């Protein structure tokens, strides 16, 4: 696995980007995340794996405070971004989310044109000085989202009229367009064919050069391919967190081992 060797070299120089300490999440009375501490490093792809319903999405949404929008959701513990507590009163969640972008598990394009879907982020963050620049950003993002060829002739069509996989890539493009420092991707390739998946993985690898990426995936292969660190969740607990190579080849926890060896896909 040549990927593995490549990362190991870089490991030491990396800095902690997000540090989560003793995070607990409750949905009403249900304890969805149990005392999770994890450090997400800069210039790294971190993969969250674990059985369905174990709390991956929930934890991911904590990292940019998207859980704020769920009334019954309560978050405890500290999450630090660049050493600053993101749940601090003084923190503007908006600024936080501009820094920590997100691709949701269910593709959710705006009921607007494809162009506007992608242009929305750059517009509100003032990333383009003029129309030409914006066009460029949109095109670039769509290209990085591996969807440009499919939609370049129909940028005015509504984003909701795309196929499932296209919507997913549109959402990736939308998230990339705002140039976040950290990108949280919840199963970004679930509806994608192998080629598109490869392109998105390339994108992820590319993003890693400048940013930090967290990706939730059910595909062990994908985790092994793109990530340098892997966290394994089980029933709301973070069972194991470490270098991807180590997790996949030499898991410490029996639960991790059984999950990984029970692999099929």
């Amino acid at each position, binding site marked *: 696995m040549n990927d593995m060797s490549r990362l190991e070299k870089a490991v030491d120089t990396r800095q902690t980007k997000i540090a989560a300490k003793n995070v607990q999440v409750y949905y009403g009375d249900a304890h969805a995340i149990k005392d999770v501490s994890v450090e997400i490093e800069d210039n790294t792809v971190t993969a969250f794996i674990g059985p369905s319903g174990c709390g991956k999405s929930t934890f991911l949404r904590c990292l940019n405070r998207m859980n704020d929008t769920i009334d019954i959701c309560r978050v405890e513990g500290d999450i630090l971004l660049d050493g600053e507590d993101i749940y601090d009163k003084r923190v503007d969640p*908006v*600024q936080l989310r501009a820094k920590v972008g997100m691709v949701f598990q269910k593709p959710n394009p705006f009921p607007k044109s494809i162009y506007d879907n992608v242009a929305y982020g750059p517009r509100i963050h*003032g*990333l*383009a000085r003029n129309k030409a620049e914006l066009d460029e950003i949109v095109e670039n993002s769509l290209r990085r989202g591996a969807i440009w060829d499919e939609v370049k002739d129909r940028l005015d069509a509504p984003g909701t009229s795309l196929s499932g996989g296209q919507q997913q890539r549109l959402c990736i493009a939308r998230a990339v367009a705002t140039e976040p420092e950290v990108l949280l991707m919840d199963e970004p390739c679930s509806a994608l064919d192998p080629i598109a998946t490869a392109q998105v993985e390339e994108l992820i690898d590319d993003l890693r050069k400048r940013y930090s990426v967290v990706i939730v995936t059910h595909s062990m292969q994908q985790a092994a391919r793109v990530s340098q660190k892997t966290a394994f969740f089980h029933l709301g607990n973070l069972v194991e967190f470490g270098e991807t190579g180590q997790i996949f080849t030499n898991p410490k926890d029996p639960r991790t081992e059984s999950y990984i060896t029970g692999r099929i896909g």
Partner: protein
Amino acid sequence: MPTYWLVLSLLVLAAVGYVLGRNRALQTAGGDTRALHSLPNYYGLNVALTSLVPALGVLIVWMLVQPVFVDSRVSTLIPDSAVPEDATLDLVMSDVRRVADGLDEAVEQGALTPSEARQLDAEATDIRARLGEVGVALGSDVRPEVLRAAQRYRQLTSVGKTAMSIVVAVLALGGLAWSYSQTHKDFRARNVVEKGVLALLVVAASLAILTTIGIVFSMFFETINFFGLHSWKDFFFGSTWAPNFRGDSELSILPLLWGTLYISFVALLVSVPIGLFAAIYLSEYANGATRSFAKPLLEILAGIPTIVYGLFALLTVGPMLADVFAKGGLLGVEWMTGATSVVTAGVVMGIMLIPFVSSLSDDIINAVPQSMRDGSLGLGATQSETVRQVVLPAALPGIVGAILLAASRAIGETMIVVMGAGAIAKFSLNPLESMTTITTRIVSQLTGDTDFASPETLVAFALGLTLFVLTLGLNVLALYIVRKYREQYE
């Protein structure tokens, strides 16, 4: 109108501020929007709002306070002796204002020079005639002290206006300068602007509370008076509503309440099914063309003046019902004695309420995501099953809102009830008998010929307040129901 100009220049200033703020923000960021904390527009808006809002606020307050202040200053000029025994100072002051206005008008029209206006002498000139020439009518001849007061009034007002202009201008410019100096690429302009907008939103929401307080207060004292004159036991627990002109009337709310509930119930019985089915048909079955003309047409029903519905009830629906149910009617029964009845009014009111239910529900139903429908259809459900079991539950809060709105309207309606249901308050289960509602009694008693200080008139306020409390209860219930059954999609 200098105030117009002032407001206009404030707006211009705000516009200028917008441009300045925007440019400065861009400049501090070296022309690169990416270096800014917020979008350039927010910096512009921040400057514009900071210069506009306080200045405008002060302007409004000043305009409210200045007349009071000037009045109090000027009124000291009027000796007690100058107030005719049967008048109050207030009235003299309105005379003063009128003369002052007249002088202004005269100066404006060129009939008087400003200095003439200042030096006019009541003894020497017939001011009433002079002002009459420029089209200002005065009630009587102008007395010297009134003229003096009027001149002083003009002077103070103009001084006040100047001062106001200066203060407002200073504030606006100051706000502009301050916010301009604040403008910097790291300044959190968006947060500030959004806080301002949020404050405006809160103000808007609290207006509803203010209205409620206003309503309660405007009825409270008269209600107290009523209960001072009339026994509360009779009002709440009596069984008869029979006001008369001799006093000692029986004024019980119960028969009215019964009528209100009965008539509203019938109205909802008509409007809810029709409205809901219409909404369902429009949003689920009808094609775009049908929908785009049927919906606005139905909405016209809500805009036809209620007097038309009243006449419709009286002249068409009532006699039609009577032809069936009254003596010698089709059915050979004698359930109905006249054209007016609960059903007459209820049915006609129901027709009026159709669009309240249909249009609002249609919008809400339309907003239920298509994937919900797909999910149900994919399981082999028919469209009607989908609507009943998936779409409607998901749209429930909105639909309940629409129905509540219709019910509210039914409770508040007068003309249709007066003409369609009659004016007799009684307890009866027969929907073909005449009854009346609380609202119509409120209107009747308020607009009648009875002594306004008598319980027969004051009862209107007690009725209003009681109705207010009752509907409050109903609304709490509705809120509870919606909370309980609310289904949130996604």
